[in-house]
C-alpha cells in the first residue's frame, strides 16, 4: 500500500504567494474535496492547506488515477485555470509530485518544520494535526492514514525533545516578547504597554497573553480599535487586566509600564526622550524599563536608549536575534533528517509486518481455490482411488510451489521498503487485489 501512496504539493519553494493564496483551501472546501476524492478516486486522502502550502496525500483506488488528476481536482474545486486568465498548465507547473517513500518522508519533513518557510515553525504541527482531523471527519482516513498520523506525530515529538529546531523566536513580534522575558520572565506582575493596535502589536500582545501577562494597556489613536484589539486578545478564562487608552493619554501611562512595545504607523516619534525621562522620574521603583520599537519608521526616539535603566531595542536589534536563531535551526536540520529517516523506516517496517500475514493467507487461499475447482471439474472422470491420489498429489505440489514465495515474504532481513516491494510484487503477479467472484470461472 505505501508504494501506491502519492502526494502533490504546491508550496513556497516553487510558487509565489499570489498563486499559493489562490490554491489555498478552506476547511469547508477540504471537507467537500476529500469526500469527493474518497468516493471517486482515492482509498484514503489527506489535505494540508496553509498560506505556504497546499498538499494532497492519498492512495489511488485504481491504477488510472494519476497525480495530474489530483492537481486537476484541486484546480476545479478552486475554479482556477478557466476564467482567471491563467492557464491550467501554468498552475500545474507549480506542483510537485511525490511517490511512496518520498511522499511519506515529505509529510514528516513538513510536520517537523524543516520544510517551512521559517525553519522550525511550530504552527505547522497544529495545521497538519488539523488536516488529519478533517480527513477523519470526512471519512477519508483509513488504517494507513491513521498509522501515518501516529508516525508523523512521533516525528514532531522527537524533533521537539531531541533537537533545538523549535527553540527561539522566529518572528519579530515573538522575538520582541522573548527579549522582554530575558529581563522580566514573570509577566504576571508586570504592566505592559502596547502602543498601536495594528497587526504586529496584536501579535505581540497575543504572545504576551500566552505567557500570562498580568496587565496590558493598549494605546492607540483610535480608542475603539484599541478596545476591539483587547476583545480579540483577551483570554477565554478572563484572566489578566486589559485597558484601552487613546494616544493622548500615553505620557500618563508611561511611568507604570515595565515593558513597552510600540508598533504604530505614525511618521514621527510617539515616545520622545523628554517624555520618557519624566516617566522614569515618576516611576515608583527603580526596576528597568524594556522598550521595544518594532515600527518602521521608528516610534521611539533613539535618545531614550541612552537613559539609565532603559533597554531600548528596535527592529534591527531583534533581527539579529532572529538571524542567530535561524542559523542555529539550520544546524539542527541534519539531526531532524536523521530522525525522519529512522521514522520512515520504522513506519514502513510496521506496515510490512502487518501486510505479510494477510498476503500469504490470500495467496494460499487462491491456490487452494484453483486446485479445488480443477479437481471438482474432473471429479466425474476419476474413480475414488484416482481422485484421492490426485488430490494428495496436487496438495503437495501446491505446498512445494508456495514454499519459496512464503519464505521470501517472511524474510525479515533487508530494508522495509524491499519487503514491501516483494509483497506488492507477489500481490501483482498473482492478482490478489483484483480477485472477484466472476474471475473464478
Amino acid at each position, binding site marked *: 500500500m505505501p508504494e501506491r501512496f502519492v502526494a502533490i504539493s504546491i508550496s513556497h519553494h516553487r510558487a509565489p504567494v499570489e498563486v499559493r493564496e489562490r490554491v489555498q483551501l478552506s476547511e469547508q472546501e477540504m471537507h467537500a474535496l476529500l469526500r469527493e476524492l474518497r468516493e471517486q478516486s482515492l482509498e484514503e486522502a489527506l489535505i494540508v492547506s496553509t498560506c505556504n502550502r497546499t498538499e494532497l496525500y492519498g492512495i489511488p483506488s485504481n491504477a488510472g488515477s494519476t497525480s495530474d488528476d489530483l492537481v486537476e481536482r484541486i484546480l476545479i474545486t478552486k475554479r482556477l485555470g478557466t476564467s482567471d486568465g491563467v492557464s491550467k498548465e501554468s498552475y500545474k507547473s507549480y506542483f510537485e509530485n511525490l511517490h511512496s517513500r518520498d511522499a511519506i518522508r515529505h509529510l514528516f519533513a513538513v510536520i517537523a518544520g524543516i520544510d517551512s518557510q521559517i525553519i522550525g515553525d511550530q504552527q505547522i504541527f497544529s495545521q497538519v494535526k488539523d488536516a488529519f482531523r478533517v480527513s477523519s471527519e470526512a471519512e477519508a482516513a483509513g488504517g494507513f492514514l491513521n498509522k501515518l498520523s501516529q508516525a508523523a506525530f512521533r516525528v514532531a515529538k522527537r524533533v521537539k525533545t531531541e533537537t533545538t529546531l523549535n527553540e527561539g523566536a522566529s518572528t519579530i513580534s515573538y522575538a520582541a516578547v522573548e527579549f522582554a*522575558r*530575558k*529581563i*522580566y520572565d514573570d509577566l504576571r506582575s508586570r504592566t505592559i504597554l502596547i502602543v498601536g493596535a495594528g497587526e504586529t502589536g496584536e501579535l505581540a500582545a497575543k504572545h504576551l497573553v500566552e505567557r500570562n501577562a498580568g496587565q496590558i494597556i493598549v494605546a492607540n489613536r483610535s480608542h475603539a480599535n484599541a478596545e476591539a484589539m483587547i476583545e480579540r486578545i483577551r483570554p477565554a478564562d478572563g484572566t489578566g487586566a486589559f485597558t484601552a487608552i487613546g494616544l493622548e493619554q500615553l505620557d500618563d501611562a508611561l511611568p507604570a509600564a515595565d515593558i513597552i512595545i510600540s508598533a504604530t504607523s505614525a511618521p514621527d516619534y510617539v515616545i520622545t526622550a523628554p517624555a520618557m525621562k519624566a516617566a522614569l522620574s515618576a516611576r515608583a*521603583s527603580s*526596576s528597568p524599563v524594556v522598550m521595544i520599537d518594532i515600527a518602521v519608521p521608528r516610534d521611539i526616539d533613539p535618545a531614550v536608549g541612552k537613559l539609565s*535603566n532603559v533597554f531600548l531595542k528596535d527592529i534591527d*536589534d531583534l533581527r539579529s536575534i532572529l538571524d542567530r536563531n535561524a542559523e542555529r535551526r539550520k544546524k539542527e536540520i541534519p539531526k531532524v533528517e536523521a530522525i525522519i529517516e529512522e521514522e520512515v523506516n520504522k513506519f514502513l517496517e510496521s506496515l510490512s509486518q502487518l501486510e505479510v500475514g494477510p498476503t500469504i493467507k490470500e495467496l494460499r487461499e487462491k491456490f487452494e481455490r484453483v486446485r479445488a475447482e480443477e479437481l471438482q471439474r474432473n471429479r466425474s472422470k476419476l474413480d475414488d482411488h484416482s481422485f484421492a491420489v490426485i488430490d494428495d498429489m496436487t496438495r503437495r505440489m501446491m505446498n512445494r510451489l508456495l514454499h519459496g514465495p512464503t519464505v521470501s515474504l517472511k524474510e525479515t532481513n533487508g530494508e522495509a521498503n524491499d519487503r514491501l516491494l516483494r509483497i506488492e510484487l507477489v500481490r501483482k503477479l498473482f492478482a490478489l487485489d483484483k480477485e472477484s467472484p466472476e474471475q473464478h470461472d
Partner: protein
Amino acid sequence: MIGTLSRVLQTLLPFVYAALVLYFARTFFRTVNQEQRLKYAVPAAYVVLLLHAVYIGTYTATNQHDLVATIYELFSLIAFTLLAVYVFAELRASHETSGTGFFVTAVCFLLQLVSSITVSGETIPETKAILRDPVFNAHVTTSVFGYAALMLAAIYGSLYLLLFRAIRRNEFGAIFEHIPSLERLERYGLRSTAFGFVFLTISIALGGMLIKHVNPDASALQFILDPKVLTTMLVWLVFGVTLLVRRIVHLEGRRLVLFWMSGFALTVVSMTIVNWIGTAFHSFL
C-alpha cells in the same frame, strides 16, 4: 573504620562534585528539554550534600574538631554550605530551570578539590582547645553559611551584571541565551542575601555569647572593636541595608545588585586586610 570512611569520602568528594558540575553543564550548554534534564538536579544535589555531611561528621569524629581549624578545612565547609544555600535559595524554591547551577557547582568543586588535596587531618594543640567547643563550632559554621550565602549572592550579582551588559550591547550570544532572566537573578540574589543576613546575625550573636566564655576579662567594647568582628558587623550592616532599601525605597534592578555587590567587595577587601595585619583570629583570643 570511621577514619577510613572519612579518608575515602575526602578522596571521593571532588569526583562527586565534578559529576554534579557535568550534570549542570549538560543543561547549561544545551537548551533542549531543559526541564527534563534538570529533573534530577535537586535529588542529585541532596545526594552530594548527604555525602559531604557524612564526611564532615566522620572527619569531626576522627579529628575531634569540625572543619574549621585551617583555611583548607574551611574550603570544604564553604563548598558544603554554598551548595546547601544554593539548593534552598534557588533549586527547591524555583519551579523553573536555570543555568546558574553550573557556576555554583563549579565553585564548590574547586573549593572541595583544594581542600581534599591539602587537608591531612590536622591535630589541634591544647592551646586551641576552643576549636572543640560546640558553641564555637556553631559560631564558625553559621558564619561560613552566612559568607557562603553572600558568595552565592555575588555569583548571582556577577551574572546579572554580565547579562545586563550583554543586553545593552546587543550581544545576543551564549550569555544572553543561557543565563536566566535579570528578574530571576535579582530574586535569587536577594534570597541568598537574606539567607546570609540571617546566618551572620546568628553567628554574631553566638560570638557575643562566646567571648565571656573564652576570655572572662574581655569587654563588650573589645569585642566590637575586634577587626574581624568589626568587618563582619560592617558586612552584616551592608546586607541588612540592602534588604531594607529593597523594601522601603523600592530599590530594584541594577542599582540594587550594585549595592549588594559592593557589600561583597567590602567583605573580600576587609577580610584580606584583617587577615594580613592580624596575627590571631580575633584580637581578644
